C-alpha cells in the first residue's frame, strides 16, 4: 500500500469513542467518549492508572477491540477511512501493514518455534511490500538501528536465545518492518530492568524519529513518557483528564488529578542513623543446585531502620531474602538475628524465630489464597502464633484492618473482590498479625499504580514509626529507595557492590555499576534521554 501521509497531516482522528466491556453479566463502560487527534510523525503519550482504559484506547486506535468488548459510539478515522465501519477482513489490510503493535510482554508474544527474522518479516512479506531477500536485508538494517548485537545474525536465533530487552527491540523491528504509518507501544518497557529500559527507550525513539512514524505510547510511567512523547494525554476511568504538549504538561499541569500523579515521586524519607544491628548476613554463599547465585554476601541491618537492596533481575536480591527466611539454606556463612545464629533450614527454626521474621510479596494476587476470606487470611497467624480465637481474634483483626486504613466491612471479602492496593494492604496486615520485628518486603510496590504505591509506602513508614519495625526492602526502583530507605545495598550478579547510608551511596563517587544503575533511572525531564546519549557519545 502506498503512503499518502506526510508530516503534519492528520493521520488518525478519534471522535466521541465509547467502548463497553462485558463482565459479571453486565456491560460496563470502559471508554466514555474520548476524542483524539494524531498527526503524521507525532508521538502521543497515553498515561493513566490501571483501569483507566489506556490499553483499550490504544487497541481501538487500530480499530480492534478485545473479545468481550464492543464499540458503542464514535468514529475512528485513519487516513480518511472510518475503521468502525470496516469488516475484520478489510481491517486486516491495515493491521501489520500500515499500523502495527508492540505488546508489553515480548516473551509471550513471540512464537517459540520460529526464528526471529522469520517473525520480524512475516507480515511485510505476506502483504507483498517486499520480497523475502530485501525484507531480510531490511530487518538486519533495523536490528542495527535498534542497537542489537550482531545484527547480521541475531535474526537466526530463536526467541529463547535472546534476552528480554533484546526481544522487546526485535518486536519493535517487527513492528517497523512494513514501515507503518502508526505504531502502538503498549507498556513496552514495563517488564524490563532500568538499565535495559534506557537502551530500549533510546533505540525506540531513534527508530521512530528516523522513519518519521506516528506512534501512540501507552505507559503508567511518567518519566518514560516524558522521553518519548510530543503530546501527553492523561486518562482516568475512561475519561480524558487533560491533554497538552509534553513540556507544558510537565511544567504546568492544569488538573488536580494530573498534579497528584506528578507529585508522587516527591516522597522522601529523612535518613536515620544506624543503631544496633538486628540482622546480619556474614559471608553468605548460596546456590540453586549447582549454580552458585550468592558470592560472599554480607549485609548489616540496623534495628528500626529500612535497608533497601537494589539490583536488576538476576542480581541475587530475592535469593538473599530466601536465605534469611530459611527457604534456601546457605552453603556457608551465618545468618545472625537479634544476637543468635539462625539455623539454615526452615524446619530447624523455632516457631518464635519464624514469627519474628515475616515476608510481604511482590504479587499480592498470588500471595493470598483466593479461596480464603480476609478474616481467614489475617486470622490464621493470630491463631497459629498467638493462640487467639473467637471474639478476641475478631477484635484484633479489626484493629489490624484499621492499622492498614481499611475497615471491618472487608473481613468477609475474598481476595478477588479487592483492588491491587487493598490486596497488598491485607498482605501487610497478615505480616503484622504475627507481631514481627523484621519484615522482608520483596518488590511490594512494583506491581501497583503510582498513587497506590505512594499510599503503601506511606503506610509502611507510619507502621515503622509506630511499631519500631525493621524492613529489608528489595526493589529495582530507585525512586522507591529514595522514598523509604535509610541504608542501601547495591547488588549485582550475586555480589554486594556497595553498601552504606542512603546519602553516601547516592552521592559520588560511585563504583561503575552503581553509576550505571543511577544514571539509568528516567527523570521527569524531556531532555534527560538526549542528554544521557550525548554524555555516552562523549565518553
Amino acid at each position: 500500500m502506498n503512503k499518502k501521509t506526510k508530516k503534519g497531516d492528520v493521520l488518525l482522528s478519534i471522535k466521541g469513542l465509547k467502548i463497553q466491556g462485558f463482565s459479571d453479566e453486565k456491560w460496563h463502560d470502559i471508554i466514555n467518549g474520548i476524542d483524539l487527534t494524531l498527526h503524521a510523525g507525532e508521538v502521543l503519550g497515553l498515561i493513566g492508572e490501571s483501569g483507566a482504559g489506556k490499553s483499550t484506547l490504544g487497541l481501538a486506535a487500530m480499530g480492534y477491540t478485545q473479545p468481550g468488548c464492543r464499540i458503542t459510539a464514535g468514529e475512528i478515522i485513519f487516513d480518511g477511512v472510518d475503521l468502525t465501519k470496516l469488516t475484520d477482513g478489510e481491517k486486516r489490510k491495515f493491521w501489520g501493514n500500515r499500523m502495527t503493535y508492540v505488546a508489553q510482554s515480548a516473551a509471550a508474544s513471540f512464537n517459540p518455534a520460529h526464528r526471529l527474522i522469520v517473525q520480524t518479516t512475516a507480515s511485510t512479506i505476506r502483504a507483498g511490500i517486499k520480497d523475502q531477500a530485501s525484507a531480510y536485508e531490511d530487518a538486519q538494517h533495523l536490528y542495527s538501528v535498534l542497537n542489537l548485537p550482531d545484527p547480521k545474525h541475531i535474526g537466526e536465533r530463536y526467541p529463547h536465545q535472546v534476552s528480554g530487552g533484546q526481544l522487546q527491540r526485535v518486536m519493535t523491528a517487527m513492528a517497523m518492518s512494513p514501515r507503518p504509518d502508526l505504531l502502538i507501544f503498549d507498556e513496552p518497557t514495563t517488564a524490563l530492568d532500568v538499565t535495559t529500559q534506557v537502551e530500549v527507550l533510546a533505540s525506540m525513539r531513534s527508530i521512530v524519529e528516523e522513519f518519521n512514524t506516528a506512534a501512540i505510547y501507552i505507559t503508567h510511567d511518567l518519566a518514560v513518557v516524558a522521553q518519548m512523547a510530543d503530546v501527553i494525554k492523561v486518562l482516568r476511568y475512561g475519561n480524558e483528564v487533560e491533554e497538552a504538549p509534553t513540556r507544558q504538561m510537565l511544567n504546568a499541569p492544569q488538573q488536580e488529578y494530573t498534579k497528584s500523579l506528578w507529585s508522587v515521586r516527591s516522597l522522601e524519607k529523612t535518613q536515620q542513623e544506624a543503631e544496633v544491628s538486628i540482622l546480619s548476613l556474614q559471608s553468605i554463599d548460596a546456590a540453586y543446585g549447582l549454580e552458585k547465585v550468592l558470592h560472599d554476601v554480607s549485609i548489616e541491618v540496623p534495628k528500626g531502620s529500612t535497608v533497601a537492596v537494589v539490583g536488576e533481575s538476576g542480581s541475587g536480591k530475592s535469593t538473599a531474602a530466601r536465605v534469611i527466611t530459611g527457604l534456601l539454606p546457605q552453603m556457608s556463612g551465618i545468618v545472625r538475628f537479634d544476637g543468635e545464629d539462625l539455623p539454615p533450614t526452615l524446619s530447624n527454626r523455632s516457631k518464635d524465630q519464624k514469627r519474628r521474621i515475616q515476608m510481604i510479596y511482590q504479587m499480592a494476587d498470588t500471595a493470598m489464597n483466593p479461596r480464603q476470606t480476609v478474616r481467614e487470611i489475617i486470622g490464621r497467624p493470630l491463631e497459629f502464633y498467638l493462640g487467639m480465637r473467637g471474639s478476641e481474634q475478631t477484635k484484633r483483626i479489626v484493629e489490624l484492618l484499621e492499622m492498614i486504613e481499611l475497615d471491618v466491612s472487608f473481613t468477609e471479602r475474598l481476595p478477588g473482590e479487592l483492588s491491587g492496593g487493598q490486596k497488598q494492604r491485607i498482605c501487610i496486615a497478615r505480616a503484622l498479625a504475627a507481631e514481627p520485628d523484621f519484615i522482608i518486603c520483596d518488590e511490594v510496590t512494583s506491581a501497583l499504580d503510582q498513587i497506590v504505591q505512594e499510599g503503601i509506602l506511606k503506610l509502611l513508614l507510619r507502621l515503622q514509626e509506630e511499631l519500631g519495625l525493621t524492613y529489608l526492602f528489595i526493589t529495582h526502583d530507585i525512586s522507591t529507595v529514595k522514598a523509604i530507605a535509610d541504608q542501601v545495598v547495591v547488588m549485582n550478579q550475586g555480589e554486594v557492590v556497595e553498601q552504606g547510608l542512603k546519602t553516601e551511596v547516592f552521592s559520588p563517587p560511585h563504583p561503575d555499576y552503581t553509576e550505571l544503575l543511577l544514571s539509568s533511572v528516567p527523570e521527569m525531564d524531556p531532555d534527560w534521554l538526549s542528554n544521557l546519549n550525548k554524555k555516552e557519545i562523549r565518553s
Partner: protein
Amino acid sequence: MTQGKNTYSAAGEVGSVVEKRTFWTRAKIELSKSPWTARFGMLVIFIYAILAIFAPFFAPYGEAQVFPEPYAPWSSTYIFGTDQIGRDIFSRMIFGARNTVGIAVATTFLAFLIGGTLGLAAAINRSWLDQFLSRSVDVLMAIPSLIFALVLLSIFGSTVTNLILIIAVLDSTRVFRLTRAVALNVVVMDYVEAARLRGEGLGWIMRREILPNIMPPLIAEFGLRFCFVFLTIAALSFLGVGIQPPTADWGSMVRDNASLIMFAQYDLKAGLTPLLPAAAIALLTVAINFVVDWFLHKTSGLHDE
C-alpha cells in the same frame, strides 16, 4: 497533596465489582443457565439415586425372591418377566441400582482418598517421596487394569470388600496423576510459600491451602472416574468375578439372561430383557458425562463467544 474528591483513600479504592451472593443463589443462577443435556443428566442421576436409596419401597418383590415360574414373559405381575430361576427382573433391576451404583460410589471415594492424598503429598514433597510414588504408579499403570483386577480377584476371592479395595487401588493411580499435576501449579504459589514460612504442617497445607484451589478438576474427574469404575464392576460381574449371586447387579444380570437375545425373533420383549440392565448402565454413564461436560465447561473458563 491533593484536595477534595481526589483525596486518596485505601478503603475507597474500587476493587473488581463482584456482587455478594450465597452459594445457593449462585447455584440457582448457574442451574437456570444450564443446557438441556446437563439438566437431563442431573434428572437421571437424581432418579437413580432415589431408586437406589429407597429400593425396597419401589421394588414389587424381594431382591432374591424366587417364584415358581422361570423365564416368565412380560406381564402385569412380572413387569419385565422373571429370570432363569424365577426371580422378578424389574425388582432385581431396582436393587441392582443400589448394589452396582453403591459399590461404584464407595470405590470411587476410596480411589480419590488414596490417589488424592498421595498426589498432594507428592506435589508438595517433590523429592524422594514424589519419585517413589510416581514410579510405583507408573508400574501399576503399565499392567492392563481389567486383567490385573481379574488376577487379584481370583487370588483374594470375590468378596465385595476385596472388589472395592482392588478397583479403588487400581483406579487411584489415575487420580494420583491428575491430583499431582494440578497441585503442582498451586504449590508454586506465594501463598503456599507463605504458609510454609509460617511453619504450617503438611496436613494444613494440603487441606486448606491447596485442596480448595484444585477442586473443580477433581470433581470433574470424580464423575468420569465413577463411570469407569462402574463399567469395570459391571464388566467383572459379567465375567463372573464381580458381585456374586444372589446379590442383584446389572453386569451379572446381562450375563444371566444373555441367551434370551436369541429368542427375539419369537418374542421381541424376551429378547429385550437382557438389554434392559445394559441400557440402565449406558443411561447412567451418558447422564454423568453430560453433567461433567457442563461442569468442566463452566470451570475451565472456556466460553463460547
